[in-house]
């Protein structure tokens, strides 16, 4: 157990520094949607890379992934690496998003779909489904901060206090300057996350006698953990069911795909991609080594989620470093939540409000967006407080649930025949099927909900599109613009 005053002091310092950075990030007037939610499409590559990393990697890494490694061994590493390889989708879709975003003035990925398929309902439906899955997902992240602080201080800091701190910080970071304050605080937090975690892992490995003896210990005590399916936890179908939804994460999750609109240039977009890949590679290895270390040091834990708090209270980690890692985990959660918060507000303001109220100006959308930020945060806070089964289910379902928009997204860039009816039916029907499968814990044919999501949504998108009339003029214009620009910018 760590001293409560040390924990409080470290949190206080973290808050002061981040608020300072958020304050500094204010530049120019954020009086329109593009400015507030996309930073005027002028983010530099370095900040984009760090912020993309912080948004992608949540408290899941050092708690959940480490726990998965603890339970199932090296398969957890494979799972995260498959996701990592999926980020290569950005190398193909990134420039395309960026080019059309600039040309047509898109603020949200769903707005892009609505325009490309010439049907505003597509934008609305995709946005509503995103909220449906991502608000519970944020709630679970908030709860994660609560559990972490309570666990580490032996409840001297209560669960509720932890959740409130996280909620307030997420609101403040997104409110001060929209995406600018989110991106800059994200950058700071990502550096914090990776440096603290790497340091502590190096210390632990040294404490356990160096890399050689680290692997010898794993090999002698738990050889199965170095293979898949290993102890059976990562059966091939489980592995497939986990990895497929995450493989498409960079396209399916709007809080990251919206980032593709923001870099100042294609060069910055490139820096974002490469920077993320290096960050992600290191952070993945660190989190997995962390989980392996826990299995060496505390082999018989009942609950794998306790692995991280246990490690932080162990003798191998000096208390001050332990508190810093703890704040690093907190930062990982908050930097994910504030980005989701901002993205969901933009989705609501642009695609729901903006389409329901026909004469909504850009300015009134921004006002609505700003009002919605705290509302979504409070919703997530309330969800985090209730232990409702549905919230947990929707959160787990989020990676599978968001997958249903992927065929329509791919189709927008690569298939002229795609139609609004195809997009709508694939999102709505497969989305509902995912929720039903998750609620009933059914796995027809042994396949997880994510696999059904991608299979059914692909079939529906293609099938229904072929039966309906495609927006030919728009599709031709959209795709030929891309063709010219991609060539001009040496992308193809």
């Amino acid at each position, binding site marked *: 157990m760590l001293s409560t005053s040390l924990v409080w002091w470290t949190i206080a310092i973290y808050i002061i520094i981040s608020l300072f950075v958020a304050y500094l990030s204010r530049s120019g007037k954020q009086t329109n949607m593009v400015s507030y939610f996309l930073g005027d499409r002028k983010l530099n590559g370095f900040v984009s890379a760090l912020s993309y990393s912080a948004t992608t990697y949540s408290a899941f890494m050092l708690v959940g992934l480490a726990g998965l490694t603890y339970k199932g061994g090296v398969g957890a590493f494979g799972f995260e690496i*498959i996701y990592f390889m999926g980020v290569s989708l950005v190398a193909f879709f990134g420039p395309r998003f960026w080019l059309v975003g600039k040309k047509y003035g898109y603020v949200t990925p769903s707005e892009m779909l609505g325009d490309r398929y010439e049907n505003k309902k597509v934008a609305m439906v995709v946005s509503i489904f995103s909220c449906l899955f991502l608000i519970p997902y944020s709630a679970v992240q908030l709860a994660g901060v609560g559990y972490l602080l309570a666990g580490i201080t032996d409840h001297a800091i209560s669960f509720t206090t932890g959740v409130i701190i996280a909620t307030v910080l997420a609101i403040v970071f997104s409110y001060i300057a929209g995406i600018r304050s989110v991106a800059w605080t994200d950058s700071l937090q990502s550096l914090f996350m990776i440096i603290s975690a790497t340091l502590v892992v190096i210390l632990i490995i040294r404490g356990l006698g160096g890399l050689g003896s680290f692997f010898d210990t794993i090999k002698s005590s738990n050889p199965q953990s170095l293979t898949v399916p290993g102890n059976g936890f990562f059966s*091939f179908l489980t592995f497939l069911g986990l990895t497929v939804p995450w493989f498409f994460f960079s396209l399916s999750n709007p809080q990251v795909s919206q980032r593709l609109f923001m870099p100042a240039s294609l060069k910055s977009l490139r820096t974002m991609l490469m920077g993320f890949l290096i960050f992600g590679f290191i952070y993945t290895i660190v989190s997995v080594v962390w989980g392996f270390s826990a299995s060496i040091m505390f082999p018989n834990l009942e609950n794998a989620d306790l692995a991280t708090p246990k490690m932080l209270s162990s003798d191998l980690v000096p208390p001050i470093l332990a508190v810093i890692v703890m704040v690093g985990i907190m930062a990982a959660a908050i930097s994910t939540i504030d980005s989701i918060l901002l993205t969901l507000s933009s989705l609501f303001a642009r695609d729901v409000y903006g389409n329901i109220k026909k004469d909504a100006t850009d300015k009134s959308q921004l006002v609505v967006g700003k009002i919605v930020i705290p509302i979504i945060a409070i919703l997530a806070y309330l969800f985090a407080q209730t232990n409702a089964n549905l919230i947990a289910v929707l959160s787990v379902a989020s990676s599978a649930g968001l997958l249903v928009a992927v065929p329509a997204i791919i189709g927008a860039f690569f298939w002229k025949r795609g139609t609004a009816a195809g997009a709508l039916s694939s999102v709505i029907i497969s989305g509902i099927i995912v929720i039903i499968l998750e609620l009933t814990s059914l796995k027809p044919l042994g396949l997880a909900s994510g696999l059904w999501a991608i299979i059914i949504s692909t079939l529906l998108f293609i099938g229904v599109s072929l039966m309906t009339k495609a927006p030919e003029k728009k599709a031709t214009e959209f795709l030929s613009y891309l063709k010219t620009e991609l060539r001009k910018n040496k992308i193809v």
Partner: protein
Amino acid sequence: MKSKELKWAILISIIILLGYLLPYTVLTNVAEWYGSLLLWTILAVIIIAINYLISRKWGE
């Protein structure tokens, strides 16, 4: 998709496929650090290199 892009896409797909197949077949009994752990690490590094090459001329 243009042919250059298509070639990269195929190469990436092959690497990902290897990431699914090898650990569950050839390496399923190799309980060593140089088993699946090393394989996935190497594949990840190759993916970084490929992304570097794909994006090399962006915006020039």
